[in-house]
Each structure stands twice: as structure tokens, then as C-alpha cells.
């Protein structure tokens, strides 16, 4: 608590230390179909965060006793590369990775038509290559795009963002410096953008209900912005197909994968 003495202003004249406004995301770049062996894949850069996601399945769940006769299982593995953090990370998956994997997998379950694929598993692997706060939401955004790339039937995308508090201000998409503020509150959240159903929500820090109301509003807005980037990335891969389709064509079907 003594940290309070070294008081930093995290927002000055509406600008944050890295020059962003309070409601501004770091630059977000998404590309799908980046790995040839996977059924679906995605590379994502979000500020300094860099993640790669791959999807395999639906495929038979093994060993057989884990199979669910009513729906597909979702196995989500969030991992950080040893060099992705300032100090070298122990390669053994830690408790944090385990917890993030669990809640992220659960967040995706609502989006996928799992009941169409009993006894199967959908395996999602996400590797963090570089990090600067907000990797779990970055991973989820990439995983959702990779699922769409794999052609796995979904009710909606899953869009996610971090929102929180630093220096008494409610801000969107906290970076590491902001997350380390003495009064920092970190709220990763994910929604189904069409219905605003919340599928992931965590928080740590000290927050009042009034502050939460503000944060929720900002978070929902942020998720919608992320959704637009996901949509563009998926469409981009097939924009040429649309162009080709509009021309007279002599053959039975046109589908393309965008080189």
C-alpha cells in the first residue's frame, strides 16, 4: 500500500501514458488460415501481444470414456512460450495457464453447436509468443477466429477485451504498466456480440458497483470493436471469391482459399 506515495497519473488530459484515449484499443491485427496442417488457425497481434491459435476437430474423443454422448468436448489449451514474458517462464504449464484454459474453453462452448457432434472433441491450442497484458482475451479472440476458419458451426463469434481501472480511471484494454498500477483492477470479459451474452468474466482488484457499471459499458463497446476486426479478417480471406462469383463462370462451383 506504500506504493501510493509514488503517484503516477495514468490519464492526463484524456490521454494515457502510451498516448491512447481512455476508450481506445491497442492496434489489433488478425489473420486466419496461417497453419496448413490445422483444420483452422489464426495469427493475432494486439499491441505487443502476439498469439497463434490452431483448431483440430471435431474428431473422435479418446480415450473413449471421456466421450460425451450428447455433445462435443472442447479442449482449450492456453500456453505461454518461455520467452514471452520478461523473465524466462517455466515451460511446465502453471496454475494460471490451467485456470485460463478452463474458463476460456467454457466461454467458447456457448458459441459452438456442440450438440451436433456427440462423442467428438474440438481441440484448440493457443500459444502466446509475446505478451504485454491482456493475453487471455487475445488468445480467445484468435481461437474464435480459428474456429470459424475451421468451418466449425457456431451460433456467433466470441469477442473479448480487457477493461479495468488504473489511477482511478476506468480504461479499455490495459497494458502492462497500467495493470501494475497500485489501484489496478483487471476485468477480462468475452461476449457473443450479436446477443451481448457474457461468456467470460473475471476480475481482480478493488472495484465498487458504480465503477463496474462504467467498466461493463466500456467493455461491451470494446468487444464490438474487436468483433469488427475479426469479421474483416475472416472476410478478407474470401473477398476474392466474392469478386469471382460476380463474374460469369463456366464451372459448377467456385470456392477459393485466397493465396
Amino acid at each position, binding site marked *: 500500500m506504500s506504493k501510493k506515495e509514488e503517484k503516477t497519473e495514468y490519464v492526463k488530459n484524456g490521454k494515457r501514458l502510451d498516448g491512447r484515449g481512455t476508450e481506445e484499443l491497442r492496434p489489433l491485427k488478425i489473420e486466419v488460415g496461417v497453419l496448413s496442417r490445422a483444420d483452422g488457425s489464426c495469427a493475432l497481434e494486439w499491441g505487443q501481444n502476439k498469439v497463434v491459435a490452431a483448431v483440430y476437430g471435431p474428431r*473422435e474423443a479418446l480415450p473413449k470414456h471421456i466421450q460425451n454422448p450428447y455433445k462435443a468436448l472442447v479442449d482449450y489449451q492456453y500456453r505461454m512460450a518461455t520467452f514471452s514474458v520478461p523473465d524466462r517462464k517455466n515451460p511446465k504449464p502453471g496454475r494460471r495457464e490451467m485456470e485460463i484454459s478452463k474458463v476460456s474453453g467454457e466461454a467458447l462452448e456457448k458459441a459452438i453447436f456442440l450438440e451436433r457432434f456427440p462423442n467428438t472433441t474440438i481441440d484448440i491450442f493457443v500459444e502466446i509468443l509475446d505478451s504485454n497484458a491482456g493475453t487471455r482475451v487475445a488468445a480467445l479472440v484468435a481461437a474464435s477466429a480459428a474456429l470459424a476458419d475451421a468451418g466449425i458451426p457456431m451460433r456467433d463469434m466470441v469477442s473479448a477485451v480487457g477493461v479495468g481501472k488504473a489511477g482511478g480511471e476506468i480504461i479499455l484494454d490495459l497494458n502492462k504498466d497500467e495493470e501494475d498500477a497500485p489501484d489496478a483492477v483487471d476485468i477480462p470479459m468475452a461476449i457473443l456480440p450479436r446477443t451481448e451474452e457474457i461468456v467470460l468474466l473475471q476480475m481482480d482488484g478493488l472495484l465498487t458497483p458504480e465503477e463496474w457499471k462504467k467498466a461493463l459499458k466500456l467493455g461491451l463497446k470494446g468487444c464490438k470493436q474487436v468483433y469488427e476486426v475479426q469479421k474483416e479478417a475472416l472476410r478478407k480471406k474470401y473477398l476474392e471469391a466474392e469478386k469471382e462469383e460476380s463474374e460469369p463462370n463456366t464451372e*459448377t462451383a*467456385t*470456392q*477459393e*482459399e485466397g493465396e
Partner: protein
Amino acid sequence: MKKKIVIPGELVSEERKQVGSHVFMENGKIYSDALGLVYNDSQDASVVALHGKYFPQRDDLVIGIVVQETFAGYIVDINSFYYSFVSKEFMRDRLQRGSIISAKILSVNEINEAELGQVRVFYGGEIINISPVKVPRVIGKNASMMEALKIGTGANIMVGRNGRIWAKGGNTQLLSEAIKKIEVESHLSNLTNKIENFLKEKNNNA
């Protein structure tokens, strides 16, 4: 006609219509469940997915590989979510693990499990894989692409809807190169001509 690209969860139609493939109804509106192109007319709404595993459809011809023999029949991999089963009742030949067959899909249940019939066994030859959504391009209009491939490579070819192509005889090396080319350039028009030229060129150089 310009076709709209949709992503999962995007609106396809606000009107009540017959729901086709890769769409679902929620609160009276129709949404896409996949990344794909919208096919929407006055009665039907559907989406053609641009990527994905093979969804078995009744009457499709598929190429399968026997994975295991059981007491009553054979378990066959058809490149989909589940293995399929062929009863020995339908079979004269004795199969083993690794046998290649073609079969017709007799029925598909609600979880996309397929029942196979009209089995034919292939002896020898090899399998070339292609993304299932690109199979129509390998066939071409009125099987024009198939003809071009057969003439250009001298191979015996059988195309399964499930993204597996069986080939025997002729220049199968050239055939797999041509199929790779089809997969990569599947969005280009005049593809059949391009492939014909590609095969001619290769044959002349050889």
C-alpha cells in the same frame, strides 16, 4: 449476382424461409453458422461454407479406407467427423485394414453419421487428398475437368465428394501436381483451360 460473405452468427434473412445448409433459425430470423457465401431466394436460405470438414450428404459418392474389421462388418474412415460402418451383408470381397473402397451414402443421421452401401473395392492405386469444399472444381462442369485430367495424365480417376481422389495408372505424379494447382487456383475462372494447358506443357517437356 453478387453473393454476400457472412461469418458465423451473421444475419442471413429476416424473413421466415426454408432453412438450408449452414444456417439456423433464432427468434424468427435466420443466421449463418459458418464462414461462407449466402444463397438466398424467395423460399430458401442457405450458406455455402468456404472451408471445413466433409459433411456427409445422402447419395454422395465417397472414397473410404478400411480402418478395422469387426465381426459384422468394417469400420471405414470417410474423412469426416466419425467413422462409418459397412455391413458384411453388402460385401462379396473380403477386406482388410487399409483397403480402399468407394461407396454411396445411403443415409445420414442427425449427428452426421453416415451409412454406406453400393461398395466397390479398389485394388492398388493411390489416394490424393483435397479440401472437400473444392471437390466440385475437380469434377468441373459436366465433368469437364475430370476429362481433362484423365486425358492429360492417362490415369484412371475416381473423385469422392469427401475430398479423396483415387487414381491408378498413368502419370499419378503429374495428377497430384494438377490437383494441387486446382486447389490453390480454385477461385480463378477458366480453370479447366488452365489445367489443360498446364498438363500439355508438362507432357511436352517430358
